[in-house]
């Protein structure tokens, strides 16, 4: 019986980069295959080839033993290949039904939408695979975990047999991850086969039947959870020994750098997002803000960096009231901001790497004299910084959109960390990044903290919070439920707090 899916010798080149180098991959029916690798290793490229978004330069794809040509997502979908992207492709103002049937609408008499037929089918799928969802709900009202279920239903609605998941657990709480794993098992029990792109070594070990590790475009290892450990996987991914924990000298907190008192912030819908939050961050310490996305962290960070007005309370940086300060004033006060959405807020994708590296410092000497930009200076600094921060790019004049997600993030880090900063506000700084990059950025953050910078780290990744923080605050529905020293914080305690269970602190 031929394997369900076989990729043979897939090679894909981009200008200056060999993204996939003769990759062989086999997926059997009912199997869960995990694809691991650093940023730039070629995982997403490979999946984009499979899904028809790229045409391979060499190699072939076989489905059930027969060679196939995939010219676009339509072909892939016809072959039963469905992709659930890391960034959901949902229309917020449409219902679940409308989103799922978009593009394959069921019609009555040729022109009228038959929502009922679609929503019935959706309910069936929902029932069959344990994906609880309300077909009439508006997507924008749904939590991220439920939105993901909608994405999965989209794919099943189009009769996918092979499901590709790109970083599916990136935005889920520990509890939602458990739910997700149950869904995956139920999909497999009902005959589906799964390819799973992930960086989370512990999850991969838990869920996968087979693990394939890519590095620099090549397959460097094929193993199973029995034969591998987090350590061995990480080493394969990076090609050397990886240190999974950060060596941190004990914190020596100095003066108060950031002081937040009774902060009230509204979201875009004029609802309270931050509800009377107070805390301090001192020089030389990391305050981690844990919590599931959507509990006010985004609005908190926006308020602190001047991007959102405050309804009540006060913020001060080094004693100066910044409640009404502009983003530029806050930046000039020595604040660095690593935004949670790097492509939306942190970079101008059409600008070059060099330009992005001076995105908020272009007007200062030596990058400008008066109104005139000093390009040689900018270019010199850019070359230094990409070397120092190990940004993998064909050059500094390339549009930053050409870089992989991890390297884009490194550009932002290189930009912010090269300044003289007293306060670092980092929001999900390692979202979507590989082990090597995560290790690197964590190292940078700890170094800044050791140098005396105050760090506010906002992240839904518990591991990250627990590794880097000296104190941990948990945010739930706009309030801070507790602030614990890291020694007292356990996964269980934090998990409960993140879900709103306050007694856990006792």
């Amino acid at each position, binding site marked *: 019986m031929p394997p369900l899916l076989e990729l043979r010798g897939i090679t894909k080149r*981009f*200008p*200056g980069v060999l993204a996939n180098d003769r990759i062989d991959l086999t997926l059997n029916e009912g199997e869960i295959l995990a694809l691991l*690798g650093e*940023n*730039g*290793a070629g995982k*997403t*490229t490979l*999946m984009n080839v499979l899904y028809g978004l*790229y*045409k391979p330069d060499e190699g072939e794809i076989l489905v059930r033993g027969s060679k196939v040509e995939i010219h676009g997502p339509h072909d892939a979908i016809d072959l039963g290949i469905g992709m659930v*992207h*890391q*960034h959901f492709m949902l229309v917020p103002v449409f219902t679940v039904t409308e989103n799922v049937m978009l593009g394959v609408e069921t019609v009555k008499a040729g022109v009228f939408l038959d929502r009922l037929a679609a929503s019935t089918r959706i309910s069936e799928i929902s029932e069959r695979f344990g994906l609880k969802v309300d077909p009439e709900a508006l997507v924008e009202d749904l939590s991220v975990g439920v939105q993901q279920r909608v994405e999965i239903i989209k794919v099943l609605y189009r009769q996918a047999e092979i499901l590709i998941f*790109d*970083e599916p657990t990136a935005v889920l709480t520990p509890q939602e991850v458990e739910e997700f794993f149950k869904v995956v098992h139920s999909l497999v029990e009902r005959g589906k086969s799964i390819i799973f792109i992930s960086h989370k070594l512990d999850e991969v070990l838990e869920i996968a039947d087979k693990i394939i590790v*890519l590095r*620099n475009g090549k397959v460097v290892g094929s193993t199973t959870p029995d034969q591998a450990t987090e350590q061995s996987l990480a080493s394969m991914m*990076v090609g050397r020994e990886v240190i999974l924990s950060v060596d941190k000298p004990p914190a020596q907190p100095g003066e108060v750098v950031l002081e937040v008192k009774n902060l009230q912030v509204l979201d875009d819908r004029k609802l309270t997002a931050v509800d009377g939050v107070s805390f301090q961050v001192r020089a030389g310490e990391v305050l981690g803000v844990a919590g599931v996305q959507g509990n006010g962290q985004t609005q908190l960070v926006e308020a602190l*960096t001047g*991007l959102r007005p405050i309804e009540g309370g006060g913020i001060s940086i080094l004693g100066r009231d910044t409640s009404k300060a*502009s*983003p*530029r004033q806050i*930046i000039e006060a020595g604040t660095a*901001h690593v*935004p949670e959405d790097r*492509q*939306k*807020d942190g970079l*101008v*994708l*059409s*600008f070059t790497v060099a330009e992005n590296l001076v*995105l*908020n410092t*272009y007007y200062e000497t030596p990058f400008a004299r008066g109104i*005139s*930009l000093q*390009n040689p200076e900018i270019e010199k600094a850019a*070359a230094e910084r*990409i*070397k120092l*921060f*190990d940004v993998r790019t*064909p*050059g*500094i*004049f390339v549009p930053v*959109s*050409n870089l*992989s*997600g991890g390297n*884009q993030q490194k550009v932002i880090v290189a930009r912010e960390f090269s300044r003289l900063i007293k306060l670092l506000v980092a929001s999900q700084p390692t*979202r*979507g990044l*590989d082990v090597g990059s995560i290790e*690197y950025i964590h190292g940078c953050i700890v*170094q800044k903290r050791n140098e005396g910078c105050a760090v506010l780290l906002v992240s839904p990744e518990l591991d990250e919070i627990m590794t880097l923080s000296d104190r941990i605050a948990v945010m739930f529905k706009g309030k801070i439920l507790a602030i614990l020293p890291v020694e007292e914080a356990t996964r269980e305690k934090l998990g409960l707090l993140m879900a709103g269970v306050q007694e856990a602190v006792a």
Partner: protein
Amino acid sequence: MAQEQTKPQESKQPPEQSVMQKMAIRKGVFASLMVPFLAIVTSLILGGIIIAVSSPPVLAAWRLFFQQPLEALSLTWSVVRDAYVALFVGAFGSPAQIAQSIKEWRATGETRPLLEAFRSFSESLVMSTPYIFAGLAVALGFRCNLFNIGAEGQLFVGGLAAAYVGYAIKGLPAYIHLPLALLAGILAGAIWGSIPGFLKARLGAHEVINTIMMNWISFRLTDYLLTGPMARPDGLPITPEIRPSAYLPSLFPRPMRLHWGFFLALAVAFLVYWFLWKTTLGMEIRMVGANQNAARTAGVRISLIIVVTMAISGALAGLAGANQILGLDHRMARAFSTGYGFDSIALALLGNSHPLGVVLASLLFGFLRGGAARMQSVVGIPVEIIRIIQGMVIVFVAAPAIIRGLYRLKPPKEDEALLARSPGS
């Protein structure tokens, strides 16, 4: 920072990659010139077909095709050929005439035939000039993601202001009067442009609507001023002649009308290039146009940039109007502009919102315009044919897939594909 251990074997050093990068850039430039070039060629071919089809003798010949096939074909060819020859001569001048006049000038020192021979070429440059200014105005707006549909109106107020300073102020030497008149045109356009800019920045009111409305206001304002306060003493709706000290000087004697405005336009195009890519303000404008969110996060004051951009854009369009008055007409009449402001929108798109592209596109439009008049007078082809050709060029550039499909060109680089931007592996 673990930079010592982190580099894997294939880490790419910048100097090595810059060769690959240069090749990619060169390929990209070539590719991006291919489509406009083929667009122009295709439009001329289609224009030729339209010329043939709209010519009664050709149609008559084709009705008799089966009796006299060669007649139909040769007539078609000669009609189209004559039309395009007329277009060419109207735009550039006749090579034979130019050669002849140079010989005469060499022999006798007579300049008059020389001037006659180069007249078409000079006219084409003259017609390109307001396109350059207005095209730059719209292109600058586009760089900030602002749609300045008000170039025409800004052109008008620029002309009015320049005309006023030109005729009303007495006794100034040229080196003060001319810059002053130009400045008046610039300021008038800047104010006119900054109003919609302010409305957008403060109230979020879309500039497309407001610039169009400002156009109408400026047309009526022109009507009012030209039939009242700024009218000539004899009552005609024309301003008095501006004083010679405010002229943009001609380069050559009559009949060549080429004036310094053309070179001013080129200088301004270079200035706009320098401004957008070599200054802090220009970078801010581009940032706001490319990604307003990132610009805001980086500390740029979005409202200010929007107003400033619209003001500068208006200033450039005002300069277009001033150019026409000070260099060409030397007074302002109601029938002042022939749609330069609106054409410039297409121009800016054709030129990819880049000053060099705008200059090239302006030259194209200007030369087409120059040739059209001759095509009409000598061969009887209506000037509207040129508008059709211009329109087709714009359609082809706006929808490059047509050209790509027609000529089997490669699709745009895959790494431009939207999904390549997703983060992760």
